[in-house]
């Protein structure tokens, strides 16, 4: 069958617009912005940004864990309902993602501002304005809010596929509810957990809008720095170097995560 040549145009497209751009990123990262000559200065400059890298990873990791803790019960609850309700609840999880995340983040700004909804409510009962916005907590809240559906979806997909007979078998062999969960349900959800964490961590670690709106100059993330290199400071070579490091970091993280699930290259199927 010559059908496999149908993938030709696609592969050419991906080579042109995915692989070559990454090569160009590499090229920019290794050249000087003024002279265009080969240099390692951009990569060497990364050490000044180490605290920002660490902060990005730290905040994204915390958000991923919170998403997992909050998302698992939700995914599990949805999976327990009847098929009609299931479909409806799944839709409810997806629905917020169809609305511009910029605006949804702005709504959180309105909630958390010093003169915002929460502060004006608690102001009425005499509690002074709390510093809610421009904190690490606000940034984490923004990440959790925006990326929680990405955690729930893969968890749900994995949980509904767990054969109910396995749960019955475990009960039959003497497990109580907690043991069934710990010994059967949870281990079988690992692929969903891994894919959920990846799907939350990657966008969270590279975000720039959430930290701009909900954070302060003290919560600058690596995404903000990259964005500014392209849009305001205009040093694309430094920005490319950062992108390169960020990308490598993420590939290492994903590689480590996939160790847990064995060699399954289609875990990342949303």
């Amino acid at each position, binding site marked *: 069958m010559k059908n496999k040549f149908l*993938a030709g*145009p696609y592969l050419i497209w991906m080579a042109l617009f995915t692989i070559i751009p990454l090569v*160009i*990123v590499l090229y920019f990262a290794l050249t000087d912005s003024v002279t265009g000559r080969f240099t390692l200065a951009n990569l060497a400059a990364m050490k000044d940004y180490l605290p920002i890298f660490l902060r990005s990873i730290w905040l994204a990791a915390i958000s991923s864990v919170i998403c997992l803790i909050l998302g698992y019960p939700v995914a599990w609850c949805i999976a327990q309902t009847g098929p009609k309700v299931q479909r409806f609840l799944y839709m409810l999880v997806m629905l917020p993602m169809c609305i511009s995340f*910029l*605006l949804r983040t702005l709504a959180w700004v309105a909630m958390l501002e010093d003169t915002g909804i929460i502060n004006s409510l608690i102001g009425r009962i005499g509690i002074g304005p709390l510093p809610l916005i421009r904190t690490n907590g606000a940034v984490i809240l923004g990440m959790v809010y925006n990326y929680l559906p990405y955690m729930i979806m893969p968890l749900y997909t994995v949980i509904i596929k767990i054969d109910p007979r396995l749960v019955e078998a475990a009960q039959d062999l003497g497990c109580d509810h907690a043991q069934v969960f710990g010994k059967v349900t949870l281990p079988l959800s690992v692929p969903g957990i891994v894919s959920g964490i990846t799907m939350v961590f990657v966008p969270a670690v590279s975000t720039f809008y959430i930290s701009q709106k909900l954070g302060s100059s003290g919560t600058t993330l690596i995404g903000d720095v990259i964005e500014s290199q392209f849009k305001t400071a205009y040093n694309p070579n430094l920005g490319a170097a950062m992108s390169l490091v*960020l990308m490598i970091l993420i590939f290492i993280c994903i590689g480590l995560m996939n160790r847990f699930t064995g060699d399954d290259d289609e875990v990342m199927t949303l």
Partner: protein
Amino acid sequence: MRKVSKIITVIIFIFLYIPMIILAVASFNKGSDISVFNGFTFGQYKALFEDNVLLPLLLNSVIVAIVSSLLSTALGTAAAMGIHRMGRRARRLAMGVTNIPLTNPEIVTGVSLALLFAFFGTMLKIKNVLGFVTLLIAHITFNLPYVILSVMPKLRQMDPNLTEAAMDLGCTPIKAFFKVVIHEIMPGIISGALMAFTMSLDDFVISYFVYGPTFVTLPVEIYNYTKKPLHPKIYALFTLLFIVILLVMVLMNVLQARDAKQRREIAPLRKKVRQ
């Protein structure tokens, strides 16, 4: 444990919809400050329909979303067919390439495409390389993997003999695709196309790096807006959009439920003789 997770679930659903409620309330607000309610009005909706900035931008977004989702669906479906037929090693490689835009952070994809376009812009001496075409290329690129990932499972589920059965009965390979295969994988194609459409409509990060002043989409403009105060008619626009999307989703849900029910119950009763 069951009870605790139920309570968490309810709280999470409320949490997910708080911003939607705030946006909806703000769209009826007389004042322009989103956090202070100054009284009820339909004024924002009126302003929205008389507006000549937002709606054209929305139209731009819709145009990019439609064109890019159609093109990526066609290209992606063909690719999925091809990948499906590949040998083990070639398929692994192709799926690896497909996973790159999915696992790469959006900002890296955006930056890399921006650099590519800048690079070719200087090489080919085009002055303002960024515009509709670059935006469209970027959108097709990040849509393709979603189409492939939703079509591939349908191809895998399909009885491989169906194509052969069609050819056995006289179809050329192309005819076999349009008469048989496409019907089988249609749900995957549709959900891939829908996913591509919504991804593209709502995309901000990648668009932000590859848009040009000649062609701006709504999310990009909202971002540029938020550096100055936002006009509340945007809230009105998104409340309307939210309602439209809600209705479409509910409708799809009902149709699906009815379809599933029909297949279970009615099919065995149909014994009418064809005249």
